[in-house]
């Protein structure tokens, strides 16, 4: 059925949103800014990095990161420019000083949130 076809289903995008994807959406900006923080890079590399560093936990539909990246660019948190490596053009994203500041704030908010949840769940500190 639908859940069994989670791997490569045509409606995987919608499933992602229903099964915890909404929680991820709220933190997608933080994840994207963190991925770009190490250095200017393009969307494909960002998606790969997210998948690998999360050990497969954040296996979101790759295409969904692009509207988010464009939103971050419109908000002035990242810049983008086209780069040609000989094979094809790629849009490279880089963090702005404002983006770095936002990332620092979001990280602090996340740590506060995580401490609160751990406290409520009575889990040991990380």
């Amino acid at each position, binding site marked *: 059925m639908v859940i069994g076809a989670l791997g*490569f*289903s*045509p*409606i*995987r*995008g*919608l499933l992602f*949103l229903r099964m915890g994807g909404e929680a991820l959406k709220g933190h997608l900006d933080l994840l994207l800014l963190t991925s770009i923080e190490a250095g200017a890079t*393009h*969307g*494909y590399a960002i*998606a790969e990095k997210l998948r690998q560093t999360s050990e497969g936990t954040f296996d979101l*539909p*790759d*295409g*969904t990161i*692009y*509207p*988010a990246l*464009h*939103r971050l660019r*419109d908000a002035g948190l990242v810049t983008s420019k086209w780069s040609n490596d000989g094979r*094809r*053009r*790629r*849009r490279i994203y880089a963090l702005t000083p404002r983006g770095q500041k936002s990332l620092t704030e979001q990280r602090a908010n996340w740590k506060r949130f995580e401490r609160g949840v751990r406290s409520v769940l009575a889990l040991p500190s990380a």
Partner: protein
Amino acid sequence: MTEPRELSEYLDEVDRALRGRRKRRREIIEELCGHLLDELEKTPESGPSVRRIIDQFGSPRVITDGFNEVHRAKRLRFARSALALTAFSAIGGYMTQNTLTPTGSEVSRPAARAQSEARSVFGIANVIALDPTTGRVVHISRHTSE
């Protein structure tokens, strides 16, 4: 690498649903196409098919909804800025119009008295009279001393 037919059809579907100027849509399609071609090149021949890679990328609906939302937000910001600028210009124009009054019968009595005194005492060529009752600059005139 040439685009497989399924990839072209997918990108055409995304392009049809995207909103905004042609240049913006073209660049979005180019960016998405680059990602999918990167994925295809990385995939061995025995790996997932083009169709499965496209499915993993996300449905056209999910992708375009995201982009169109970004486009809508940008247009809303622009409209708000234009409205604020228009309102500011209108207010500024109104205030300017009411501050500088052309030469004529609109000059108030206290201002006219002050202007007359300035002419007789100083004999200056140009007189700007400050209306003491309203505090406005009410008169700019050219006067040659007698």
